């Protein structure tokens, strides 16, 4: 199966290795990976800031770049949530809507694709560590993904996964929220990290690098004995 991939702007710039790991995992699972190098962003930052016109301009570019009728695998539940749940509102009554309908059907978060489409859960990963899994709000509440990542992680040799307190509570990132209200956002990260540390976790794993970027940036500044890792990077460990 050939799949398209969408690599969100901030992953492209800050975490290219995770995206590269996703390509390798998809290939290992038997997929051909097609990447349109013109892609940039889905427009979510603008949408969440209320700048719907900016979002629409960027979204139109996004829609033009995914014209194939095949899965668009994405390493970010948050961006998939944006495209799946909020594009209909942005592009209501617009010329791009029909083209968008194809994307709505095809765009899919990585763990969802692995578990529910490919039905591949064993990727031969190995990682000796104690970890917790952080449900991103987008995966949990926008895409209804709760078990997929846990299923994949249960197959990682050496990984001891525990559930932490308040696992369905937000980490405090929230896009522009974390720049407009840095103290509140940071305190939420502190609470999340403390919950992870209560479980003796060495690693906080999630489907979303936006959460992890925020958690990691707090943990490193405050010298917390925990690091963050994207699900894909865990699955690519050997």
């Amino acid at each position, binding site marked *: 199966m050939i799949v398209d991939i969408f690599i969100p702007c901030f992953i492209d710039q800050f975490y290219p290795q995770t995206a590269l790991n996703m390509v390798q995992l998809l290939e290992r699972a038997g997929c051909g990976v097609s990447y349109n190098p013109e892609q940039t962003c889905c427009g979510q930052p603008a*949408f*969440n800031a*209320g700048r719907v016109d900016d979002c629409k301009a960027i979204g139109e570019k996004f829609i033009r770049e995914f014209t194939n009728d095949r899965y668009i695998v994405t390493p970010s539940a948050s961006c998939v949530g944006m495209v799946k749940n909020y594009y209909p509102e942005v592009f209501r009554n617009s010329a791009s809507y029909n083209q968008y309908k194809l994307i709505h059907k095809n765009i899919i978060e990585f763990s969802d694709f692995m578990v529910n489409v490919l039905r591949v859960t064993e990727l031969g990963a190995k990682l000796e560590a104690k970890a917790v899994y952080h449900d991103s*709000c987008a995966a949990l*509440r926008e895409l209804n993904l709760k078990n997929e990542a846990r299923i994949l992680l249960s197959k990682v040799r050496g990984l001891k996964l525990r559930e932490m307190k308040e696992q369905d*509570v*937000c980490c405090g990132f929230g896009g522009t929220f974390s720049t407009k209200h840095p103290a509140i*956002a940071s*305190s939420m990260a*502190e609470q999340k990290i403390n919950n992870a540390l209560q479980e003796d976790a060495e690693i906080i794993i999630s489907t979303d690098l936006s959460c992890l970027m925020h958690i990691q940036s707090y943990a490193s500044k405050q010298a917390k004995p925990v690091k963050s890792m994207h699900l894909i990077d865990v699955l690519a460990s050997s």
Partner: protein
Amino acid sequence: MTKAQEFKQQSEQTAFDTALHHKLQNSIGQYQHKHLRGREQFADLELAKTRASGLKQKVIENLDKYLIEFESNYIKNGGKLIWALNAEEALKEIEIILQKHNINCAVKSKSMISEEIHLNEFLKAKNIDCPETDLGEFIQQEAGERPFHIVTPAMHKSKEEIAELYKQKFGTPAQASPEEITKFTREYLRKKFYLADIGITGANFLIADAGAIAITENEGNATLSVSMPRIHIAIAGIEKIIPSLNDLDLFWPLLATYGTGQKLTAYNSVIFGPRQSHEVDGPTDMYLILLDNGRTNILEQPEQRRALNCIRCGACLNVCPVYTTIGGHAYGTTYSGPIGKVITPLMKGLKEYQHLSSASSLCGKCTEVCPVKIDLHNLLLHNRKEAIQQGLQPKAEKVTWYFWKSAMLSRKKMNKGSAKVKNFMLQTFFKKTWGEHRDLPVVAEKSFNQLMRERTGNR
């Protein structure tokens, strides 16, 4: 100081207050535990929520008709109805009633709308004694504080802190137990009930087909407030309508389960006007003040209008990580938490209050819990959109977005500049907004785009 600056200052003060966090976790933990049991009474909770949401939506979309239906039935029952456009008008009408009936002593049961119009401060200035008669509200009044939570006003106070407050105010023992505090308050307030000429209450529901108001409470104080004094004043927002008396069998359990975790609140009263000619007791006069105070601004917005479905159960506050991090007072508004962030900017103006719409990570827990299915986090987005459309955006932000947008519209532009330059830009422009608690993320030496182009040999 602007409201936004005040909010920033207040929220920064409490964001890392771990003692506060513990108290809130404790209180909300107990609520969550009870709430889960309360939910079990619904054979089909989703259906109950859908019905309640649909009924409220029907009311809000036809509010003009329902209000008139309510008014005519209420007047038939002998009540006097006063329409008030804003707090000032409501207070003026209350003053007229107080003068007309020559009143010095009043009692009040818990009512958020009375907080909205600053009734306590107003009565104090007029030298009218008016104790809060709900225990939590009484504690807050004695402490000189406004309610911390719309359902649990003294949620942020430990029993030790309350005992200390009572010791200072009333000379009770420093180690007084919650039972002793409650007993003392009960005796103290009972005298106030005997003396009061007027009872002031809110209303949880205005029942259109019956022309009656419904009041829900746990302590019996509201029932006393409407039965002992000779005059009753109720104040309610115009959105409180439900179509029929029969709908209470849906709204009462929902309000109880989502408000306090109970199956049904201890006391639920339906008040059909003042004392009737064949009745022997009850107030001789009943006044109902129906207040707009910005609610029609919400009604004006086709999307945010859904926020008027709210039955003020407070469930969205309890699940909100921002609320449990900064606490209710940091908002500086009558209504805090998600619902407060949606309605306050619309009621009081986005210009002054748009910062509240941005103070959310949009995690969606509020939407998930709401018993009348208000998609609160989406409504926050609509507020943000409205603020941009009104041009309420700082210049510096506009510039940042301009550059961001032009980069996102062109892969070429996005690829411009080395990681070094990009990291320098981040440090220069985002260090302050990212705050003192976190390191900035670092732009990678090579973007994925570049790595992929190298991988495919397509430079």
